[in-house]
């Protein structure tokens, strides 16, 4: 139970154990950007539609704008800052990014697909990526980049459900 001005939470953030006091009105998005300075995660619509704020929670993509920060307690959170730069080559070469507003969310969902390749046994890449709205690329560059990324050598990192 928590009252007053703040709630103390412990979580694993980009591989590090973190203890923090969050405001009751803070979203996970606010905590990441303003509490931790992880400004790679963007706010787009603020209503769970555009996917710009996508982070991985316990290994699965979620909209960080929809999650009260206090719900991140005891969870594993990964942001775009945790994705190794060299992993992004395929997306860069295919023109998966233009203005960049959706890109951190696109990268996080693509990173999740990359780490859980069996997803393509049941889903198309377009269905898996449907939670990111992109108004620049027409999506073809994103899908081509992800296809190339999936064909490249296996990454490190955790699979879905891993912590």
């Amino acid at each position, binding site marked *: *139970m*928590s*009252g007053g001005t703040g*709630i103390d939470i412990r979580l694993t953030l980009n591989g590090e154990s973190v203890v923090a006091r969050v405001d*009751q*009105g803070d*979203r996970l998005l*606010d905590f990441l950007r303003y509490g931790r300075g992880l400004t790679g995660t963007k706010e787009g619509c*603020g*209503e*769970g*539609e555009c*996917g710009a704020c*996508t982070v991985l*929670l316990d290994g*699965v*993509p*979620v*909209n960080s*704008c*929809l*999650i*009260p920060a*206090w*719900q991140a*307690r*005891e969870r594993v959170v990964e942001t775009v800052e945790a994705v190794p730069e060299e992993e992004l080559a395929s997306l860069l070469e295919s023109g998966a990014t233009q203005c960049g507003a959706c890109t951190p969310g696109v990268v996080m*969902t693509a990173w*999740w697909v990359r780490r859980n390749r069996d997803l393509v046994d*049941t889903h198309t890449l377009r*269905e*898996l*990526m*449907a*939670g*990111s*709205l992109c108004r620049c690329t027409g999506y073809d560059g994103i899908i081509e980049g992800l296809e190339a990324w999936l064909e490249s050598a296996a990454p490190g990192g955790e699979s879905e459900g891993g912590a």
Partner: protein
Amino acid sequence: MTVYSPRDLDEALDLRARHPKATPIAGGTDLGVHWPQRIAGDPADWLDLSGVAELRTHTWTDDELVLGAGTTYWDVIRDPRVVGALPLLVRAARQVGAVQIQARGTWGGNVVNASPAADGVPVLMAYDAVLELRSREETEEVPLSEFYLGYKQMRLGPDQLLTGIHIPRRTYDFEWFEKVGSRSAQAITKVGVAVTRRAAEWRVVANSVAPTVCRCRTVESLLAEEHPVSGPSDLAPVLAADVSPIDDVRSTARYRAEVLARIIYWGLRDECPMFT
């Protein structure tokens, strides 16, 4: 504003009884929309169910699938047994938002949020799901088709939590789900329908066309009695007895009524010899 964070179901039921005005929250895919504005305008207390492990599991018995109320759409999509045994659950789940929403939105939350547009509810109702409502003292079972009383009104006591959804495992002759939205992902339903048939027993459940998700019992009778239907225009007057669509931000009453008749007609045409 106070946030109550129970660690297990007993503690959750105890907090629910002691703080009946605290709003239960699980995945937050509806309550979290414009969260800062919601918090600023409303000093409500919250009962956070996301840490209650007992609610997060789904279990199979010989007779039924029991979804813990906190089971997410993604949990169901990722269980290959569901596709085989209760395929409409997966079909509906994959039409909710995209993975970011599917991974957070819960079946129980979808039921008690009581939106007329709820995407998970028509398939649950077409499968004759029964809700498990628990308080500290007792457990009550209520058929989902009898749970809603009116717009956002339901048979849920101030000390009760929806803890589980029991779905009978049966063999169906026909199972079908259709959702009409503005696009194929990230859309809220304009009109939707789930249909099951076992021999002459039909379930036809529609959403976004009435104050609650509802069974279309007049249509179910027409199908069971094998009345001839020569086109969507024959179904529309029958449906008028079952549904009462309105104009709102997503669609119009006229569109919803016409499209519901069309999707039911074309969806069932191959299944029903009396549809000509």
